[in-house]
């Protein structure tokens, strides 16, 4: 017998991959990425550095946006359209259901990321830029970051409407990328309240910059193995932590 988690994950993947809305978002993302590359071409000397940096930056933003969009809309739609009612009436636990949804969406994101990777390589070839393997570390970082972000959107979606879920997830994404810069801000600002707030945020939020390997792509250097392992391990722990939080909320949720 197929595991209910696998069945839900497969169904989520099929349902999403056929959704036209997803394609509009993907096309928009690819155009945005191409625009970022085009901007890089304006540079006089550092064409490679600027194109790759802006291109990867574009992919990063689009991919994070896609993750938030998918995480918030899919889960909300399932509750709003009450498809979840008939599912939870089946011999499936809420844990299996939520994990299945999570895996299904991760599979979608992985597919999309592969698509971005192909586009990224294609655009580089078109522009006559050299293809560096070191550029692809960034994609690994994007994927692990999206695993954390997806778990966070699940947590928000269990109790709030999409607008609030999207806003909350976006705030999480921004703070996650800023927490590593708080130390330099603290040097300039000696306010006690700012110090407390900054230190609290640093402890509560994962440092998403640890998964940002764009600078290695620009420098054409490999990410040290220990950094790769540590960041991926931490990302897995953070994703598990937020997923468990979402699960705790979801298990107590009343479908009124």
């Amino acid at each position: 017998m197929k595991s209910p988690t696998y069945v839900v994950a497969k169904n989520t993947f099929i349902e999403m991959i056929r959704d036209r809305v997803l394609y509009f978002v993907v096309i928009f993302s690819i155009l945005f990425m191409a625009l970022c590359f085009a901007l890089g071409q304006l540079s006089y000397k550092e064409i490679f550095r600027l194109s790759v940096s802006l291109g990867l930056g574009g992919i990063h933003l689009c991919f994070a946006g896609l993750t938030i969009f998918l995480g918030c809309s899919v889960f909300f739609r399932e509750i709003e359209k009450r498809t979840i009612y008939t599912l939870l009436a089946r011999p499936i636990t809420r844990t299996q259901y939520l994990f299945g949804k999570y895996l299904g969406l991760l599979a979608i994101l992985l597919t999309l990321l592969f698509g971005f990777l192909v586009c990224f390589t294609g655009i580089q070839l078109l522009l006559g830029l050299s293809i560096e393997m070191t550029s692809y570390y960034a994609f690994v970082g994007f994927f692990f970051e999206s695993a954390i972000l997806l778990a966070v959107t699940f947590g928000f979606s269990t109790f709030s409407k999409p607008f609030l879920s999207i806003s909350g997830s976006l705030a999480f994404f921004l703070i996650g990328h800023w927490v590593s810069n708080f130390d330099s801000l603290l040097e300039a600002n000696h306010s006690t309240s700012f110090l407390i707030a900054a230190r609290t945020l640093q402890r509560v939020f994962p440092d998403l910059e640890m998964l940002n390997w764009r600078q290695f792509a620009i420098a054409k250097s490999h990410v040290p193995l220990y950094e790769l392992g540590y960041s991926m391990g931490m990302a897995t722990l953070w994703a598990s932590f937020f997923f468990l939080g979402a699960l705790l909320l979801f298990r107590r949720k009343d479908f009124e």
Partner: protein
Amino acid sequence: MILKVDKLNKSFRHPWSLKAIQVLFDVSFQIEKKSIVGFLGANGTGKTTSIKCLIGLLTYQSGKLEIFGEHHLNKSVKQKIGYLPERPYFYNYLTAEEFLTFYGQLSGVRGKELDKRITHLLELVGLKHARKMFLNQFSKGMLQRVGMAQALIHKPQLLILDEPLSGLDPDGRRQLVNIIQNAFDEEDTTIFFSSHLLDDIDRLCQDLVVIRGGRIRFNGAKDDFVDIGPRHYLLRYQEQDKVSETMKIDSMDKLQKTIDTLRSQGKEIHSVEQEKVSLDRAFSEFNNREVNQ
């Protein structure tokens, strides 16, 4: 006994004041095996809430819910129940076949057995032609029928339907009533369904559970419910060479006396029948009595 609800209490929290608002009060009822039971009540009386508690979509404050003698949320119980919610929506981008495969697999049906079951059910619900059609191309009636098929995909022993007939046109309602009747006759399924459409309940059900204001007011045979309250007797008699006449008498005592009187006058008694009341009228009288009490 296939389903037993004992003293179920449910309250919701007000979103702002967080004050508890109780909606179910000691709800208790039971359903016997191999029966079609109607769950009757006006809108907002607690039918859907009770069903959601049974299915596990809502938590409850107190009570004991058993299906097949086990806790209602046990995996072994869920394998034996089918459920169709009110106004169901399903995954737009799945075909009818994929949709039923998905639900079948979730319930542990697989391989050729699942294929055969899908073919049989699509025939039963009249959607054989729509096997490869995406659900976003389905009309409301078709969605309701494919929803019935998903509820029956694993040959459930108990089928719980929440307002399955609401929002359908007369033709759609007739089709769905036939499907429910077929499921009962052919699949040996016990059916528990909520509705406020009394004609359909009258046509399908042998037993009733009546809820009002979050409290169960009746649980028993439909005939017993219809017989509650004073019922008239219709007495038909004939005088020699004249056309027969019918008299309406409101009590057994009066009936006996009238028969004696008529006989003593040489009139012939043709028949005595207890007045038949429709479920619609019985329910309306029941509600009036409840309001007056």
